[in-house]
């Protein structure tokens, strides 16, 4: 079928301001939005810029805003976004570097800040024992692929760049609820902050956007509950 894509364009080395350009693409309803972008870039306009790599929702490179919703272009099929014009824009909350590519350095710095590694001193000869029930506490959080769809869709992130944001909080959760981690106190202290967990006011946009179906808001609320429980 014939589709029309309206795509956000901006090359700061050439353009004074962003603009939108429309492309006609022939695609099947089962094709991915990413396939359509590739057709545009490979067959019509090689100047279009976006990130991509695995093309099946594992690497997290191609987060963007499609018809107003943050999503991975490789996980959205044409039939899900059918409209007169499919609007593709860069992920909100971040500065645009070129077209659909945004500067994620502040995002990565926030992930680094929550210390995305296990804090543990004991190294037994074999594995540490962890009961399946304990492992299950983090089995949803470990699905996070750092695509930043949640950051793009979060109204708080869009207006306050100091807010830690959903994905870094999920990363914190993943360690706080890992029974093997020994950094609990300092980790809770770090996110117990107006710009940490308390910055979240439960809009649930992150949960709706997460391409890995993590109940992000629920994870953040769980962190709030643990922090409150320890203060009471």
């Amino acid at each position, binding site marked *: 079928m014939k589709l029309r894509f309206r795509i956000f364009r901006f*090359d*700061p*080395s*050439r353009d004074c301001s962003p603009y939108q350009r429309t492309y006609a693409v022939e695609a099947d309803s*089962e094709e991915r939005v990413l396939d359509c972008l590739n057709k545009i*870039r*490979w*067959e019509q*306009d*090689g*100047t279009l*810029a976006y*990130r*991509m*790599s*695995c*093309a*099946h*929702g*594992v*690497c*997290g*490179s191609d987060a963007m805003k499609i018809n107003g919703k943050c999503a991975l272009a490789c*996980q959205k*099929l044409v039939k899900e976004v059918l409209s007169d014009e499919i609007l593709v824009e860069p992920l909100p909350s971040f500065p645009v*570097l*070129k*077209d659909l*590519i945004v500067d*994620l350095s502040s995002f*990565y710095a926030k*992930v*680094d800040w929550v*210390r*995305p*590694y*296990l804090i*543990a001193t004991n*190294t*037994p*000869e*074999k*594995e*540490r*024992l*962890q*009961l*399946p029930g*304990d*492992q299950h506490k*983090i*089995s949803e959080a*470990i*699905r996070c*692929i*750092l695509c930043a769809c949640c950051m793009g869709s979060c109204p708080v992130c869009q207006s306050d760049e100091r807010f830690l944001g959903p994905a870094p909080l999920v990363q914190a959760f*993943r*360690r706080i609820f*890992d029974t093997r*981690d020994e950094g609990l106190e300092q980790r809770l202290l770090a996110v117990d902050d107006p710009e940490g967990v308390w910055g979240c006011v439960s809009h649930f946009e992150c949960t709706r956007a997460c391409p890995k179906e993590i109940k992000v808001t629920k994870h953040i609320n769980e962190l709030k509950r643990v922090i409150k429980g320890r203060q009471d």
Partner: protein
Amino acid sequence: MQFQHDVVIVGSGLAGLRAALELAQFADVAVISKVFPTRSHSGAAQGGICAALGNEEPDSWEWHAYDTVKGGDYLTDQDAAEVLARDAIRAVYELEHLGVPFNRTNEGKIAQRAFGGHTKNFGDGPIKRACYAADRTGRVILDTLFGEAVARAIKVYSEFHLLDLVMDNGRAAGVVAYELATGEVHTFHARAVLLATGGFGKVFKTTSNCFANTGDGVYYAYREGIPVEDMEFVQFHPTGIYPLGVLITEAARGEGGFLLNGVGERFMDRYAPTLTDLAPRDVVSRAIMSEIRAGKGVNGGDFVHLQLSHLGSEVIREKLSDIASFARVYLGIDVADKPIPVTPTCHYMMGGLPTNIDGQVLREMFSLVPGLYSAGECACVSVHGANRLGTNSLLDLVVFGRRAGIRMKEDLRELDWPHVRQSSDERVLSRIAGIKHRKGGERVSSIRARLQQLMTENCSVFRNHRDMARTLDSVRSLKDMQEGAAIDNRGTLFNTDVLEAMELESLLGLAETILVSAIARTESRGAHYREDFPERDDANWLKHTLVTRRAEGPSVSYKPVTITRFKPKARTY
């Protein structure tokens, strides 16, 4: 710009990161990566990492070593297989200590499951050897090692693309890389260089590989006259989603899923009576293609069915949730209800840069390339021989990535600073300028699509001389065409157009070496199946292929296989 680091590692997948962690405290190490590290293709590995932990049933590293050798159809270097299987146990415990969130047994140990070609007691039947975190094992290991790299403040240059090796009188002296964000070309001066750039499945049309897998490290080393080894051995994973090629993990069969042909028959019983659906990948892929060729694809089409519905939704949710989501997103199928249409998809390169078991890159006749190391899919140790077993690749990455790191640490005592010419980026700069200023010419994407189509049609699961020879001619014409290929984008910021033009040269060069090796090997072994030579021929072909670039074209030579404890015998499952 000129950068200087004791060690430059190209590639931020598991092999590169594991090597970097080994070196971090001892040297100034930098990692260069095409993508942000957590987006490396190691993260797409789903099913598991194997080690004879014996958590579910008795196991031994010798059985694992045997399976690896037999799985590789005896082309595996057995000293390497022994290192892999023996060190696996330490390596998996190490990953657990670093925080990898493995699934657990009821007593809290690392859970293990069955996988293709892994057996108990030297081939008696399937064994639970694969340690896993649902079906996202690669991704959580990648996240864990990246977290460690953050903890140790390892310098990473993200979205920097390798465009050349810098050599100094036969010794590695650094690399030239292109910064995607700015279009600048940088020279990295180093005392040691590790190539860990992964595979090059993008040579093929139908592949589970990511867009970044264009084999740049292998190609640029080959261009410098370093041989490539066993390039004809390309793994086609039996269960790619039809027609996308997206991977459905072998763990689906490890958990009890099975294949059905168009008449509803569990056909693997006929091809591998003992292991059936858990036979190694080359065997299963050939079986699927044989069914399809016999008109027994589903509805006479080019695919068969993978049935999981009998596993129940709890097993699927707990252990196979990612693939369930792929089937839902891309096919609209609930795997708890309906079978998945699957067909073989190019998945893994057994071949690559020849290295010893310490990651040192070898020229012909076993001499070393000083200062140059390689690990992971980019390298050919050769620990996978003619066909890799599932779960052995994640293991290969952490075992041989670490060993390369240890070797480099030792060698740095001796390796002084090599000489780097001021103009070592000249070749790259003129190449980029050439591409940007060319007018007319064929589109890069069109040449690449033709290459991928040709390779998938003529150099996949079944091969023969006539089709491959014709394809080699076509690939050579495409190479000529590529030299005059045109692009649209003459800009500087995030110019992926210019990068894809350069990647195309890698893909074409590597495709040529695959074809030359495959045409020369007139036998069938592992993943390399010749319809015109259907038998394995140990008398003439129990040897590794090397291809070296010469002025007159690729030149083929051979080197012996290391055989220690397992004498080659008939390979049945």
